């Protein structure tokens, strides 16, 4: 966000909400200074005339790559669920999601 004196200022609190971080105000203020400096640095991209330039999304041009739809063995239920930090009866436990 650009504030009134033209410098770059990120709304860190709002972004932490979007990114699912629960930070203290001290942590956020440390990030604030660092991130604002980084944003000021990347402002240099505004100097470029980018009209009519196509974006590069990947390191190489990639088109849809099709293969035959053949069933191959995957991981078993046990192999998948083994890594869940909280589980019971082959299911993953989470806090209540519906009231």
């Amino acid at each position, binding site marked *: 966000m650009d504030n009134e004196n033209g410098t770059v200022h990120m709304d860190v609190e709002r972004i932490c909400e979007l990114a699912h971080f629960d930070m203290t105000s001290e942590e956020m203020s440390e990030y604030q200074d660092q991130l604002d400096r980084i944003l000021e640095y990347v402002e240099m*991209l505004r100097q470029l005339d980018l009209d009519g330039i196509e974006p590069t999304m990947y390191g190489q041009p990639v088109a849809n790559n099709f293969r035959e739809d053949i069933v191959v063995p995957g991981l078993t239920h046990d192999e998948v669920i083994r890594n869940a930090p909280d589980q019971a009866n082959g299911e993953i436990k989470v806090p209540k999601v519906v009231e």
Partner: protein
Amino acid sequence: MRSDEISGMTVAAAADAMRAGKFSSEELVRAVFDAIDERDGLIGAYLTVDRDGALKEAKTADARRRAGESGDLLGIPVAMKDIFNVKNQPCTCASKILKGYIAPYDATVTAKLRTAGAVPAGRVNMDEFAMGTSTEHSAFKITHNPAALDRVPGGSSGGSAAAVAGGMALASLGTDTGGSIRQPASFCGCVGLKPSYGRVSRYGVTAFASSLDQVGPITKTVEDAAIILGAIAGADSRDQTVLDKPVPNYRAELRGASLKGLRIGVPDEYFVDGTDPEVMSLVRGAIDKCENAGAQVSRISLPHTRYAIAVYYICATAEASANLARFDGIRYGARCADAGSSLQSLYDRTRTEGFGKEVKRRIILGTYVLSSGYYDAYYSRALKARTLIRRDFEKAFSECDVIMAPVAPTPAYKLNSTVNDPLKSYLGDVFTVPANLAGICGISIPCGRTAADGLPVGLQILGPAFGETVLLRAAKACETEFGL
């Protein structure tokens, strides 16, 4: 076999020795473990070593040899960066959030190494989720540079380079998103190869920035890098970004490598103020040697180089914020013990506690540049600027075969010197990120040491997309010319 023999031993030499029956894979793997026991207390390259598992695989390799196999990687132990899934081994990406995670499957590169007979022997340290240039952002330990223990090994594949340079591995596998193979190779005095985007599968390699990540070897010689690339490259039905192009026998392609007539481009933008004068003079000296050996050296321009860091830290963090959204304490990894009573607080506290400072910093930046109202100003603009950087290289490679430049503006720096200044540390990537943005291949090979501190310095050679053969031949010829 003695543990101190690991220091000077290459993959090619070990393969020859095993073919000649001088030692078995089991003896070789045991010698590597002895070297780790003797040396790693000071260096700190390894996170975990599954000795029983590796010895079992070494015995299998020995059995395959008795049955008539004799490939270059048969029975060769390879240290794996902690980002590769190796079935039944931990894969934490040096992050607390993946503590306890045991890989249920092999990454494609792991499977390909196994097919070739290599033994994944130990997991090595890295910057958390490959975000960093010093390995100081590991949640678990500090890794010291074997050439100077008070200095960083580089990063993010710092454990890989330190294991190889420290005489505790013949070779290692790393990943390079913005220089994470080439820079630690330069700092530790190894060879580090970043293949072209689309050359090697990323399936089973924990994603940082999917349009930039690439897997490659850190080794003692160019020949060893060629051997490993030959084993891991090629199409994969599980990663559609891998191009279905034939994989040459890269090792055989090295025969007759010469600098005579090689057209070397030297970009003005990579020789600028701010680079350590000794790095500059060692790299210039290396290029002079190439010219004296018959190469045609010419000045070229990559005019958009100065925008590369800005483009990279927008694209890479944007992709990271999406890729790392999956770590939420539900399906795998650690869950915060004090997660509160709601799903929301479970997510928020697990992520806040589980990710380290640098990872959170990058996720916040990436979330911001993708957020409503800022997408066009940052992300969209960066993708277009990325096109200009790619075009710079396309034009350059119409005039030269390879490009030569420094890998990093400095040699290995002291521990704790950049960890609190992220922008300063990001700017150190200036010579490596353009190759990732353009999808081309690059390699770092040793080109000398600084006079005062004896710190290794790497020469970076860049080749066009899927130009690994010309790149490796140039690197091999340099290695011979420099007398390494």
